[in-house]
């Protein structure tokens, strides 16, 4: 009995939902079924919101024990600070609301600078990667490096403003090889997505639900 509940039921639910959504999308059906599907989709949007809270549970589950377990003071403080700032954000958001000036202060002055820093620091690592590894060792890396060079230098207005024809090289790479290579991969990925659905429909895909709560 428990095996049916633990493994068979989730796979069964997935197959049923796939059949319902496909029939509602492809076939002409009475509006009552279409209303039921709207209701179902509304419910699952609510469910998805609950799933986001898992992130907070996961964070607390990983970092709370570290406060007591870790040896150095700095580690204890950092993990305690992580959970503290998370709680402060939630509490201020609940008390004053996310449109309040207090909350905007946290959002603008604490969250946004570091979120952008995560991406801007990559500019340095990109340059480091190019310096250390971007060497034309074989035909493939040569084509890749020439394409990177032409597109990157084509994106510098200081060059293209003075050499008008230069940007055409960049636009050619973007509109011809890039489009055709992406098209091949989009079709291949589309077929891949299709078969993920087929495997779930035929309850072949064991791994997708086994992961949760194993």
């Amino acid at each position: 009995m428990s095996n049916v509940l633990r493994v068979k039921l989730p796979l069964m639910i997935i197959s049923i939902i796939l059949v319902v959504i496909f029939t509602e999308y492809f076939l002409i059906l009475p509006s009552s079924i279409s209303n039921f599907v709207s209701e179902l989709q509304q419910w699952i949007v609510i469910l998805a919101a609950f799933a986001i809270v898992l992130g907070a549970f996961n964070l607390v589950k990983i970092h709370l024990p570290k406060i007591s377990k870790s040896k150095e003071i700095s580690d204890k403080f950092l993990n305690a600070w992580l959970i503290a700032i998370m709680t402060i954000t939630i509490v201020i958001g609940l008390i004053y609301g996310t449109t309040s000036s207090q909350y905007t202060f946290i959002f603008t002055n604490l969250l946004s600078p570091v979120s952008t820093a995560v991406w801007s620091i990559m500019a340095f690592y990109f340059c480091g990667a190019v310096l250390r590894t971007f060497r034309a060792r074989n035909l493939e890396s040569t084509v890749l490096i020439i394409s990177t060079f032409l597109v990157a230098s084509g994106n510098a207005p200081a060059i293209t403003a003075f050499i008008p024809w230069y940007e055409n090289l960049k636009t050619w790479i973007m509109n011809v090889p890039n489009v055709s290579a992406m098209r091949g991969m989009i079709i291949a990925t589309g077929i891949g997505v299709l078969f993920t659905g087929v495997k779930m429909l035929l309850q072949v895909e064991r791994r997708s639900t086994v992961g949760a709560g194993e």
Partner: protein
Amino acid sequence: MIQSGKIVQTMFLLTTIATYYYLSWLNKEKGFVPKIRKIAALDAMEEAVGRAAEMGRPVHVSPGTPGAAESIEAQTIAGLAVTSHVSRLCARNGVPVIATASRPELLPVLQEIVKEAYKAEGVGEAYNDENVRFLSDNSNAYAGGVQGIVEREECAANIIVGKLYGTANVLFGRATVAGKTIQIGGTAYYLVVPHLVVTCDYVLMGEEVFVAEAYLNQDPKQLITVFAQDIFKIISLGLLIIGLLTYSMGSNLVIDFLNT
């Protein structure tokens, strides 16, 4: 019955379901197992381990750098299949294998895989736990750790297939300068592939990572998926070529067909 403009789409979906069902029936009843073509990167692994045996140097292998919740993600599982394959090759040729984990929860899984590989090759006692190491869950620190291992222990091969991010160029970076290590990398995330192309000798790109997993596991379900997907890639190519011919002669045959 079927909404206008979606008839051919419905037929396409039903044929994918029918094809897969027929193939898995063929497999169960007639024992039909599709055969996948040789994949350059996988043959290179055998060659690399052979070279490592001659030079008497170790081989480093890792299932990539998954994020916190991504340890059970598809690419990491494909990376574990590659790790198991490399461990078996090394056990067979008596080459010491160094497997590193970038997540704490991956360490026991890696230890299990490498131990099984040694046992399957009948040299169970040759397995020792030091060779399976957890370096750090900070991706930069992990990449530095791998770089140190490849250099310090002069690994003959550096094989990392799985979920990779921006640190991929550090994972493979130093060896290209030295140039005596065969590097094999693989990931599905298209932004990271350039890092692998410029540093590795053999690269598994995008879908190839999952096909390599099916090739190594010889698991009938995965092989059938690859076979069925190939059929539909050929169908798409067929539609495309027929469409090109008819369209250049002025008729919208295929375009109207697809839009009915």
